[in-house]
Structure formats: C-alpha cells, structure tokens
C-alpha cells in the first residue's frame, strides 16, 4: 500500500486558477519531486497534502485512511517552507524543539532529540544561536532540522534550496538527499528547478497549469518526454516536424534519420515531433544520421562546449560537446553524425 495517494484532486480559486484531476501515489521511503514552472500549482498541491488548504473535490489517502478533512496538526506531516518561516522569537533550540513540545515529550527527551537532529544536519552546538544571526545555509539546515525532529511520516520541502546562492545550492544538492535518506523519511520536494529535482528526487511529478504533465524517474523524463512542452521545459530545444517512414526511420527537414526509439516502429506515415537531444552529435562523418551544418555560435561552459549550428535546410540546432572536443571556429562548416539512441519521437504538434 502506498504511503500517500492523491485521488483526483480538484481545487479552484476565485481568480480563475485551478488544479485539475491530480492523481499519483508516493511509496514509503521514497523522495518524490514535484517539478514545474512557477504558478503550475505545485505549492498549492503541497499545501493540500499538508492540510493547510482543502480540495474542492478528490481525496487524500494516507496509509489507506482518508485524511482529506483532517486538520494539519493531526496529520503528523512535516513541512519546510520556502523562506523557512523560522520563529524569530525563539533560538535554534526553541525552533527545533517546537514540534517535540507539541508532542508533549519530556524535557530530557526533547534535548536529546534536538541534539541528535542538529548533528544530523551538521549544526552541532548551534542550540543557543539566535536565528536572525544565522547565514542562509544555516537557516536552511535549522528549518530542515525543525521539520525532521518530530520524525514525520511524510516530510514536504517547498523549494528547499530556492533561497540559497549558487555555490551553496550545489553543495546541498549533494548533501540533502543523503541527510534525507539517512533520516529514512518519505519526502515530497517541490521545485521549479529541473537540476534540483533531478539531483534530489527518486521520481518526479512534472506539473503544468494545474495538471500532471508526466510522472517518471529523472532519466525517464529526460529521455522520453511525453510532449513537446515537457521537452521544452526540460531545456530540450531541438524539436523537428517529422513523418514516420518505416520502423525506426523518419523523414525530417534534415533528411531521412534513423531513430532507435522503440515507439518509432508503429504507424508508418504518422506525423510526429522528433526530439534530438543536445548530446546526440559527434564530429565526423562515420556513424549513421550524417548532417551538414555551419557553426553559428560557440560558447565554452567550463565542463562542456555549447555549439549553435544551422543545417543546410535552414534549421537551427544546439548541441553540447565534451570540453576536450576539437571544434572548428564560428562560420566554418562541419559534418555531424547523430546517435540514433538520442533521437526520440514525441506525439502532437506543439
């Protein structure tokens, strides 16, 4: 039985904004990401699960029990807010101990648990610091400790790394999943940042305008986006109109290309969208799918090159190459071969 099941959640607001028929399940112990552009309803969904809002229709099931109308403080969930919402009138200890006090634990147990939790997030000895004197990263950890301390059945994180600067985010993207797995807690994390979702979550629910667009592991989403919208959201921009010719072959403005995608076998003559992932290209004319392009832009990104090219048919494409690749200068012509495994067929025209 899944720990959490959302069953056809609907919610509409006076300003016309809605959540429509949201349904998915979360298993015990997993880290689930809710990903989507801002305003897609992911935070509202989180608040619905938390019990801070209630749905117009649909049910929230936890361990097979309907908790749709259970008050937030009786659900035994934890929620870490985007801006942390640390209590400014309490010190670090007071913040982390809050949930334990609500449980009615005795003082020694509270102290023990606070110490333990602070150690888990790497803030030993911070008990009596004033929260206003903490750095951004420390505040984030206190907020995490505060929501972990009562050992919630389900921990929800709202943009957990959103308020941090880049270097700190990079580091916490590694540390956060480790801390969460060590705490053994089931997690739903909300983010608008694909990199963050992929780094932290085992499985991602991608949302668009109040609806679930796709559910899958990060690899699934990246390799097999279910629509052009999903592809574009994930930063995959090489999308071409194509027509299926026969099993594994499509007709495109670049010529006839071979795609290893399993889906490519069905429905000859069908109009589809072809996604060419940016890592598909190799320099040189040895493999299949050879295309002649002119380099229109080249930028060095440290660990990789990004190459903008124009095909002889006028189509613009973008590829990435390893930092060590030998690439001609802008304006020069080039033959590229495209790995059939990096070519995916999508449904729809948009």
């Amino acid at each position, binding site marked *: 039985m899944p720990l959490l099941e959302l069953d056809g959640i609907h919610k509409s607001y*006076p300003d016309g904004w809605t959540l429509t028929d949201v349904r998915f399940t979360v298993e015990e112990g997993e880290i689930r990401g809710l990903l989507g552009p801002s305003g897609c309803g992911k935070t509202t969904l989180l608040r619905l699960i*938390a019990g*801070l809002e209630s749905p117009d229709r649909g049910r929230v099931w936890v361990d097979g029990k309907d908790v749709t109308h259970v*008050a*937030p*403080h009786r659900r*035994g*969930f*934890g*929620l870490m*807010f985007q*801006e942390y*919402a640390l*209590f*400014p*009138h309490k010190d670090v200890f007071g913040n982390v101990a*809050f*949930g334990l006090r*609500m*449980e009615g634990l005795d003082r020694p147990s509270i102290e023990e648990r606070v110490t333990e939790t602070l150690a888990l997030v790497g803030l030993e000895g911070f008990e009596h610091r004033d929260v*206003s004197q903490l750095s951004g990263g420390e505040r984030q950890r206190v907020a995490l400790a*505060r*929501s972990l301390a*009562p050992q919630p059945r389900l921990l929800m994180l709202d943009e957990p790394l959103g308020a941090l600067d880049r270097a700190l985010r990079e580091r916490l993207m590694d540390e956060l999943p480790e801390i969460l797995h060590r705490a053994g807690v089931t997690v739903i994390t909300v983010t608008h940042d694909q990199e963050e979702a992929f780094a932290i979550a085992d499985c991602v629910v991608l949302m668009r305008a109040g609806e679930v667009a796709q559910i899958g592991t990060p690899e699934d989403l990246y390799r097999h986006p279910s629509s052009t919208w999903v592809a574009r959201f994930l930063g995959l921009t090489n999308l071409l109109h194509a027509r299926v010719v026969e099993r594994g072959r499509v007709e495109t403005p670049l010529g006839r290309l071979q795609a290893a995608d399993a889906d490519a076998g069905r429905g000859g003559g069908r109009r589809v969208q072809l996604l060419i992932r940016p890592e598909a290209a190799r320099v040189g004319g040895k493999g299949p799918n050879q295309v002649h392009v002119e380099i229109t832009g080249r930028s060095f990104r440290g660990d990789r090159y990004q190459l903008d090219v124009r095909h002889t048919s006028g189509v613009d494409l973008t590829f990435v190459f390893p930092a060590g690749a030998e690439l001609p200068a802008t304006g020069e012509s080039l033959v590229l071969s495209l790995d059939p495994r990096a070519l995916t067929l999508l449904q729809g025209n948009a």
Partner: protein
Amino acid sequence: MGGRAVESGVGVLHLPRLVRLLFYTILLSFLVLFYFYPLASILTLSFAPQGQVSLEPLSRLFQTSRHLETLWFTIWQATLSTLLTLLLALPASYVFARYDFPGKSVIQALTTVPFVLPTMVVSLAFTALLGPRGLLNLTLMRVLGLDRPPLDLQHTLAIILLAHVFYNYTLVLRIVGTFWSNLSPQLEEAARMLGSSRWRAFAEVTLPLLVPSLTAAAVLVFIFDFTSFGVILVLGGPRFATLEVEIYRQTVHYLNLPLAAALSVIQILFTFGLMMVYTRLQASTTLPVELRSRRAVQRRPQGWREVGFVTANVVLMVVLLVTPLIALVERSLTLDGGVSLTFYRELFRNPRGSVFYVPPVAAVRNSVGFALATVVLSIILGLMAAGVLSRRSVRASGKVATSSLTDQGGMFAWLPRMLDPILMLPLGTSAVTLGLGYIVALDEPPLNLRTSPLLVVLAHTLVALPFVVRSVLPAIRSIQPQLREAAAVMGASSWRVWLEVDLPIVARAMVVGAVFAFTVSMGEFGATSLIARPERPTMPVAIFRFLGRPGSVNYGQALAMSTLLMLVCTGGFLVIERFRVGEMGEF
C-alpha cells in the same frame, strides 16, 4: 561607493552649512519660546509662586482626597478604555491583516476618519446618538411606544468609554493591523505543521510576535485617554473629571493658577514617562521578523465561518464609527420631527441685534483664519525641520554613518538626533497644560501676546508641527541618494538639486502635512478654550458655548456647527487619503 558620494557632499540633501544653522536657530527658538518657556513657567508657578522654591502647592494637592480621586479616575478610566479598545480592535486587526474583501479599502479609509475629528464633534455626535434626545432613544421610544427615553447614557462612564473606543479603534487597527499584515502567515502554518492547534499556534507564535506592536498601540491609546478633555467635559458632565478637565476648571472657574499648574506638573510627568515608553517600544516593534508583502498574505474569506467573522467585524466597525456621525447630521437637520435647516439658519443670525454678541458664523471665519495661518507657519517650520532632519537617514542606513557625521562637523552632530524627539514632544503634552502655560508665560513682558490672535496660531502650530514633520520627513527620506547624485553629476548645484529633485517629490507630502495642520487647527479645543479671546471664538469653542446655554435652539446650533466642522475635517481627510504616500506618515 556611497561613502565617496557623501564625502563629496552629494549623497544627502546638502543645505549649505549656514542655512542649516539658521534653520536650527529658528526651530529651536520657536520651541524654546512657545513650548519650553510656557512649561517652565508652569513649573515656576507651581513650585515657586512667590519666587521661592517650595513644594507647598504640590503637597496641597494631596491634602484633600479630591485630587487623588481625580488622578485615580484619570488612570482607571484610561486603563479601562484602552483594554476595551484593544479587545474590540484586535479581531478587526486580524481581519484587515489576513483577508481581502469587497469594499475593504473604503472601510479602511472610513476607520481613519475619527483620527481627524475634533473632540467637540465626536462628543456632540455621541450625545446625538445616545443622549436623552438622541437618535437611539427616540427610535426606541417610537418603536416601543414609550413616552420617556429608555436609555440614560448621558453623563455616564459608558458613553465616555464608547467615545474613547471610537477615537482610538483606528490607532490599534493601524498599528497592530499593519504589523500583523506584514507578519508571514507561514510562521503560524509552520507551527500547525509541527503539531499545534490553531489556538496553540496563535498563543505560541503569533501573540509573542505581536506583543511589541500591541504594547505600543496600548501605550499610545492610554496616553490619549489619559489626557482626554473634550469628551469628558461634554459627555461626562460635572460628575467626571480627568486631570485635564480639572486643570481647565481650576483655571477657568476658580482662577486658581498655582493649583492648575501643580496638576499640570503631575500630568506632564505621566505623559512624558509614557511617551518615553512608547518611543522605546516603537523602536523594538522592528523585530528581526521576516516581513512579507501584504498582497501575498491576504485572501478572500472562505466558508461561512470566515465570511461570518469578517462580516461581524465590518458591521461592528461601521456601527461604532458611522452611526454617531449619522446621528449628528440627522439631529442637526431635525426640528420638531421634521427636516429643517433652522439650526443652520440660526448660525447666521444675531437675534438680539447686540453689538457685543458675536454671530456664530464669525466663529467659522475665525477658525478658518487661524487654520490657514497655522498651515503657513507649520509648513515653513516643518520644511525647515525635515530639511535638517533628513540627514539622519544616512546615518540610519549604516555604512556611510561616520563620513556624514564628520562632514556635518562634530559640534552639531547631536542636533538632529535631539531635534527629532523634541519636535514630537507636543504630541504627548496635554493641550490644556499648553494653553495654561501660554496664559501664565505669554501675558506679560518681555513677551505679551495675551490679546494677540497670534497666540492661538502659535499653539496650533506647535500641535500641528509633529504631524507636518512626520508627513514630510518620510517623503524626503524616501528619495534615493542616487537621484541627487545623478542630478549633481549632471551639474546641478545643491540648491538646484533641492529644487529639481527633492521639492517635486516632497510636494505631495507637503499637501498631506498642510491638510493635517488645517484639520488639527480647526478641531483644537483644549488649548484654544483657554487662550482664545471671548470676542474671537473658534468653532469648537462656539460649540462648547452653545452647550452651556439652555434651550433646544442652542443645542441645535451646536449640532449644526459640529456637522459643519465634521464636513470640513472629513473633507480634509479625503484630501489626505488622496495625496498621502504610503501609510500615515511615520506614526
């Protein structure tokens, strides 16, 4: 970057040093002559009436229990009024902080109207509503078929408390409501997620965070209730007296100036102490709380419970704040059960044809004249004050502090820091005490202004000045140094910068300050009642005189004149709402 700008003298409003010195001199002379000197004279009168220091007048206060009783009444009615105001305004503060509903901005503006209404108008409005011939009693008599008024609220504590709530409700709403609306609702939600019930979350998180703003509001309300004058005088009748009323009676009825002065000293001690507490608290209201934009936290009420709660509060607000004013207008237009303009017409007549009799309409002319003079004087002084005080903003912003200090010259560094709170002092000083001070100090050489109309203007300016400064200063401080720097880089001299950058931005705030000064002057009663010449009454004084005379025509004229005064002040308030930038200045 900022530091260099200040060193070169462009980063802040940079009046030439000589001009600044001149401004300081004028401002300080004004305060010394028309504030400290009169107060000092009161001290002299109470402690050294014959030139020798003696504590006798003060000790005489406590020989009879009468004055102790007055002090005790002053304290406990203020305490009760404050508690009642908090109790009624706190739920409304929550409603305004957390919910968005149709008509909210109109209602919010409406709740601020009492802030600019003269005490005479409010007192009359409450008698018009709750008095023996008031709207409520007449309605009850008609509906229930009684031949006598069923409610006797005139000259009771209840009507005093109601009037105090009417006045100060908006203060609590503004201070607590504003703070609350900036408080992230996520704090309470976080507590909920950690297992607290709604009430526990309120008690453990929201309430402790609200305490500074609650106390600040309570202290301010207490100060106003403590120095309450017109309300007690009119609504309380002879049975009730606060210190303020007693000072007035001792001065006007018994001509016992030393005793009045001694009472004033007690009052000054109390209000100054409370003012200090208030300034302290106001500083600590700025806790390191993560404040959020109000838009983000307000939402429409959902479900019958929330809608009911919001509606109940709005209804209470409207009943409390609007019905007295409606009653005032209705009563002033009613004669023998029919609509009539008789009372208004009477204002323009001189029934006895007497040359000594001042027709009531002259009071309107006097009031407007005093008010216009007050506007001019307080705007001139207010701009000077804002000009020299705006430098403090640089120090407040931290880094550039030291350079601006050295730039200013060590000798005068303390001046702006001192001037600001000193300018606020008249707000916490009782008007009657001030009036008494003027009578004691300014009616003999070297400065004899006793017969001059200027005396009233000076008193009004002193009371209005804090409002003007608080309106203009935030506008000046809101001007980013970069604007001035940009103008300076493009070749503008410092006067030119002031003219081209500061003045246009400050102009709106000046309008607000001017209207504040106008309404304050129109409604001022405490000081005016003592210092206005009998032949030159203002509208509030005239209203009070009508009340002292028998007959329904006199009472009707009091109502009519109150209605006119209310219309003037409400009109002024609408102008303030239209022009003000942000919240009510820095209150």
